[in-house]
């Protein structure tokens, strides 16, 4: 090996050849991780905090502002509890809030029951080729436009539709477009893929070694499922339930299109349309409060790693 004759210098690539402003800035940034972090976060944080959180804050303020009785316009900084009094004085608002929460729970339980077997089958029984196919088969109805799916259920459920035709031989009639049960069916349909996909991922992540260990220790398959598998996929179930619960809580188009029932979303929408923004704003604090509590509990249960 020949000894170097020339004095040792840094390799050329380490010596900045051109000191263009961009390059100068680049190396300045490179030496300052804090500056890099600020540069990365500045735009997204500005957007999310000013536009999104800012909008939520304005919504909160509007709930405490008075409305001009003639023009319907909200007068900023005219503090009042009128909107809350309106909501508290009319029991309909309470009924609707409870009905919506009941429906959200019902839809979540329905979707969990429907999703568990198919998610389990996809993750642990189906062959890899079949699994890929099934994932696509879940993604198609998930991504087919929301409104179009609701609309299609409307055609199925309406008089002389598919349901009427199917039950006619038994001398029965379809539910028409007024039944609250329609809302239950359609909402469960709409959010089912949101439950299947996290559950599928959850089942897939369960290490086979744990299942084998359980079997070696004498656990029958039902015991293994209940004592080993379910606790491990529970965070995924909670992750899925965030969607089924939250989406049901806020939906107003489905109840409007397939039933005569009013949900929380309808109250917000109707009040916004009738330019009673304070009542709409005050009422929307109910689903916000419910969802914030739900999300905090879900995060504690480890659901966020399963989103």
């Amino acid at each position, binding site marked *: 090996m020949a000894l170097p004759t020339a004095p040792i210098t840094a390799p050329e*690539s380490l010596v900045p050849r051109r000191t263009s402003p961009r390059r100068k800035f680049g190396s300045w940034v490179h030496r300052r*991780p804090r500056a890099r*972090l600020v540069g990365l*976060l500045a*735009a*997204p*944080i500005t*957007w*999310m905090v000013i*536009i*999104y*959180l*800012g*909008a939520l804050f*304005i*919504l909160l303020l*509007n709930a405490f502002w008075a409305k001009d009785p003639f023009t319907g316009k*909200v007068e900023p900084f005219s503090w009042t509890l009128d909107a809350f009094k309106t909501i508290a004085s009319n029991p309909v608002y309470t009924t609707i809030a409870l009905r919506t929460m009941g429906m959200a729970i019902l839809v979540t339980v329905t979707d969990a029951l429907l999703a568990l*077997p*198919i998610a*389990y*089958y*996809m993750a642990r*029984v189906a062959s890899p080729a079949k699994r890929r196919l099934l*994932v696509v088969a879940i*993604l198609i*109805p*998930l*991504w087919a*436009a*929301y*409104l*179009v*799916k609701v*609309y*299609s259920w409307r055609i199925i459920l309406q008089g*002389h*539709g*598919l349901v*009427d035709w199917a039950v006619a031989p038994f001398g029965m009639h379809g539910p028409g477009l007024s039944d609250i049960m329609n809302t239950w069916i359609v909402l469960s349909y709409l959010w089912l893929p949101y439950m299947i*996909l996290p559950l599928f991922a959850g089942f897939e992540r369960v290490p086979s070694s744990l299942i084998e260990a359980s*079997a070696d220790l004498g656990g029958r*398959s039902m015991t*293994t*499922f209940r004592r080993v598998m379910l606790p491990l996929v529970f965070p995924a179930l909670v992750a899925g339930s*965030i969607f089924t619960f939250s989406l049901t809580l*806020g*939906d107003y*188009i489905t109840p409007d*299109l397939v039933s005569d029932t009013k949900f929380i*979303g309808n109250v*917000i*929408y109707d009040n*916004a349309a009738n330019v009673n*923004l304070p009542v709409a704003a005050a009422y*929307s604090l109910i689903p*916000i409060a419910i*969802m914030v509590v739900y*999300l905090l509990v879900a995060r504690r249960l480890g659901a966020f790693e399963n*989103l």
Partner: protein
Amino acid sequence: MTEPRYVRVLLRIATIGVLVFLFLPIVVLAIQAFNSSKLLTWPPPDFTLHWFSDAAGNPQIVQAFQNSIVAATVATILALILGTLAALAVQRYDFFGKQTISFIFVLPLALPGVITGIALRTSYVTFGIDLGMLTIIVGHATFCVVVIYNNVIARLRRVPRTAEEASADLGADSFTTFRRVTLPAVRTALLAGALLAFGLSFDEIIVTIFTAGPGTQTIPLWIYSAIQRPNELPVVNVVAVVVILLSVIPVYLAQRLSGDVAASAAL
């Protein structure tokens, strides 16, 4: 775990049942688009292609399509920039308030859409901002950011930091490292996220109703108003089928581009 045989059979039956349930409305809609009866009775008395030409010749539909495409494109571009920056910061750095930021970035999709809608509308009204395309785009970008953020962060978790460190050791500055190392690693996740965000924006109605002015229509807004007019239902069917195709094709492409999609598409 090897399940008993009867359990496998039951699981298979349940799976088929759920699949039938999931595809029933889509299939019914596809058939109804060719139904010759304006009343959309079942079974269809006869089939026709007539409604397709009716839909293509409707200037309102054409205009709504253009609006939807413009809104989805701009919202997706905004979301790509904001979502990628945020994902890089949260995944590659440790800092005070990181948990809060990751929480804020889940919020627009975790809170019901009606909340985002009414919050934006209230703000627009409070500040006297005219409702139109711009206000629609701002609303769409806000939840599209979340989709991109989730896709990129899921990918970054799987791309080890070592490649970026090696690049820095070899003398590349932060921008060069991003352009030559990080970007190629997350490129398919970005593309997949962009397709999903586009699809999400294209179909959005719950937020859009609140943020659109009376004069601006997107395709979902047009469908929602046309549903109330029985005469237009056959044309609605046609538009609905086209919309399903247009929203499913990007997802199929996204799925082929990136395996992450299965998990993150739920968001």
